[in-house]
């Protein structure tokens, strides 16, 4: 999204906010937002989560404004604008903008660019006050950029009661998805004086077309339990390199993405687990994590997370060096919740493998055997919402 468009949305939001103290939560519209900042450091020259490097990165921050308007009783218009800075540089984008016609709680029609209902966090990707770790589990936002935050198209969603306690939530959606941009390092030549390879970084983005998907979630809100999954299939995967035209993607022509999740939250305790797999012609990517957290009173929270992922190539294919195909991490969190809207987080990870924690020119370094296989990370940050 162009910065001018973001500025226009911000202007509208500020006009709404200026309407009075109660304007942020009127019946007709609401204005909410979230943000965060972190300092993050690794102990070797591997980067992690777009926020951590060996030198330590201070320049990681983001802010988003979420606007909801209800021009008619059954019609809602939703938009969320995002500004941020991390190792990828300055980022501005419109996370989503869509109109939703709510015929009933059981049937709501969405048209526009809407959040992909994939897993526990894809719809609340950057909202730090709904999770114990500053960063998401890495299958959501690792360098592979595998989970698109939104689809452009049409969807339906709803919830139906199943007796007194249980309910079934569903989503069906179709259209186009744009994956997070990612960088690829290519050997462009060799230094004549040293003989060392010279690496060129290429920015590219994958676009999935002819996409259809669905989600089912069985939940008992008063018991704090939900279990379900999402599947979507993109019949056509294209790649855009730099600012060029869309072209074929060498790894696959189509792809299928699967998620299964289970979550329990009751009182001070929360536990969740998710499995993810992307199926493509030349490679599958899979990942799972388990996470538990416990609040010691109103302020302090402890959390632990274990995550393991890998890239599976076709038999005989060694095009991706082994260290780049594996990720295993154990994370600990000590958080101080000033209020439910503002949390200070101290997180630490011990990581094996370079699928996620990796240096510049990771492929080349791995092939040469000079890559650091283990990485320790410290993340100190704050996240808020309103």
């Amino acid at each position, binding site marked *: 999204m162009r910065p001018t468009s973001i500025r226009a949305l911000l202007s509208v939001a500020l006009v709404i906010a200026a309407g009075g103290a109660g304007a942020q939560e009127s019946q007709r519209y609401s204005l909410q937002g979230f943000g965060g900042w972190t300092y993050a450091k690794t102990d070797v020259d591997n980067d992690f989560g777009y926020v951590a490097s060996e030198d330590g990165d201070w320049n990681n921050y983001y802010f988003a404004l979420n606007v909801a308007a209800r021009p008619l009783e059954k019609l809602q218009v939703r938009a969320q604008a995002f500004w941020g800075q991390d190792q990828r540089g300055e980022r501005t984008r419109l996370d989503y903008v*869509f109109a939703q016609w709510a015929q009933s709680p059981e049937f709501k029609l969405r048209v526009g660019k809407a959040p992909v209902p994939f897993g526990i966090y894809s719809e609340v990707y950057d909202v730090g006050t709904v999770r114990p770790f500053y960063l998401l589990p890495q299958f959501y936002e690792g360098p592979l950029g595998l989970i698109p935050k939104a689809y452009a198209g049409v969807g339906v969603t709803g919830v139906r009661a199943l007796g007194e306690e249980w309910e079934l939530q569903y989503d069906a959606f179709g259209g186009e998805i744009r994956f997070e941009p990612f960088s690829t390092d290519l050997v462009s030549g060799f230094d004549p004086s040293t003989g060392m390879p010279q690496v060129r970084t290429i920015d590219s983005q994958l676009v999935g077309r002819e996409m259809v998907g669905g989600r089912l979630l069985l939940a008992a809100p008063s018991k704090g339990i939900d279990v379900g999954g999402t599947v979507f299939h993109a019949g056509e995967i294209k790649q855009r390199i730099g600012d060029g035209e869309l072209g074929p993607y060498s790894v696959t022509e189509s792809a299928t993405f699967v998620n299964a999740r289970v979550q329990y939250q009751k009182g001070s305790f929360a536990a969740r687990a998710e499995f993810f797999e992307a199926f493509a012609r030349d490679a599958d990517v899979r990942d799972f994590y388990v996470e538990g957290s416990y609040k010691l009173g109103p302020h302090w929270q402890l959390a632990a997370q274990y995550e393991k992922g890998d890239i599976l190539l076709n038999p005989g294919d060694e095009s991706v060096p082994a260290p780049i195909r594996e990720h295993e991490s154990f994370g600990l969190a000590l958080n101080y919740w000033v209020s*439910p809207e503002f949390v200070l987080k101290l997180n630490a990870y011990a990581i094996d493998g370079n699928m996620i924690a990796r240096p510049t020119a990771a492929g080349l370094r791995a092939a040469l055997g000079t890559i650091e296989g283990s990485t320790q990370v410290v993340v100190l940050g704050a996240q808020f919402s309103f």
Partner: protein
Amino acid sequence: MRRLPVAVLALAALAALPAATAASQGPGYRVVVHPQNTTPSLSRSELTRLFMKKITAWPDGKTVVPVDQERVAPVRQAFSSAVHMKDSDAVAAHWQVLVFSGRDTPPRTLRSDDEVVAFVRENPGAVGYVSEGASLAGVRVVPTSK
């Protein structure tokens, strides 16, 4: 020896007193609707769905307009624990997910029992909750059940 049974009885009575007092206490809130709303009673399950916007129309077709109180208000804590079976922070976190995922917006939040009563009195589809000692002029209390 004749005094022992009396003492035992007195101790037993004292021990039973807190339970009897607790039994005589209400849930800490009352659910109120507009006087035109003829709903005879609401179960806990119906109440949580009304306030989570999963029931959006009354039997007569009027749109349900739930109103909450401030997250830190004792009456909201009592209501959240009894009806949603979560503390009000957990309910607020649930609404954060719904808001930022673009799925829904939370009920309007009002600052006092008087504001809730005034709002419900003016809106035929409204439903709110107030402290047990609140003035209820112009609204109707709906009996609730488990």
